């Protein structure tokens, strides 16, 4: 299990078009792009970490009102025990007509040894 797979399932469940990294197809009026931010071994007391903190950014683009959608996403994230480390309205892109809202999340996962 990783933060990317969890976020993808969460947003699919909310019926929001989502892609990781870049939205490759023709973008709809509302969509989310997930960008991985960092994977860190923050929590360990010895030399062999067993958990890692994975962080990612959700960029919500919406041509309509974004507030309700933002609240819905945040509530779902918190419901999945993710930590919302930042929420920020980036601005309205006058050239494209999209509102841009960024939500940063983090969650601890057990280190997978494959």
């Amino acid at each position, binding site marked *: 299990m990783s933060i990317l797979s969890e976020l993808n399932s969460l947003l699919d469940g909310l019926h929001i078009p989502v892609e990781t990294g870049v939205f490759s197809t023709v973008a709809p009026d509302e969509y989310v792009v997930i960008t991985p931010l*960092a994977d860190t071994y923050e929590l360990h007391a010895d030399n062999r970490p067993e958990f890692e903190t994975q962080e990612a950014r959700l960029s919500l683009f919406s041509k309509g009102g974004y507030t309700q959608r933002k609240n819905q996403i945040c509530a779902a994230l918190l419901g999945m025990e993710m930590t919302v480390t930042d929420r920020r309205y980036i601005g309205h892109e006058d050239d494209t007509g999209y509102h841009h809202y*960024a939500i940063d999340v983090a969650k601890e996962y057990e280190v997978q040894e494959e």
Partner: protein
Amino acid sequence: MAKVTMKMPEDFLLKVSRLADQTDVILPRVLKTGGEVVLDKVKGNLSSAVGRGTKYPSKSTGELVGALGVSPAKQDRDGNFNVKVGFSEPRKDDGSNAKIANIVEYGKHGQPPKPFLKPAKSASRKACTEAMTVKLDEEIRNL
């Protein structure tokens, strides 16, 4: 009734007294050390983000990376010392480095984000704390 008086060693008391006097000098030095650790990470991340995966050949001049720096330590209204890692302004073309950095960090519709600040914050937290601890110990030893 018996009475016991315990005295702290003179040299220790002297050091504590000097530490109190030198706080305004020591803290900026310690913060500068921590700020430089974060700056190196931010600079590395930004250098690798600029010009990567662009639709058209990059015309980067390196001005954005060159404008990165650490501010001198300043005291805020609560009395805490702070340093900031950020960009000097303005650009040669009178544009804003902060605006460009914001677009690189958060992206736009049709332009994927290339986060460099947030990952640097997460990745350098531990190294920054350790560097500041070492510097503070060094400063206290030198009192």
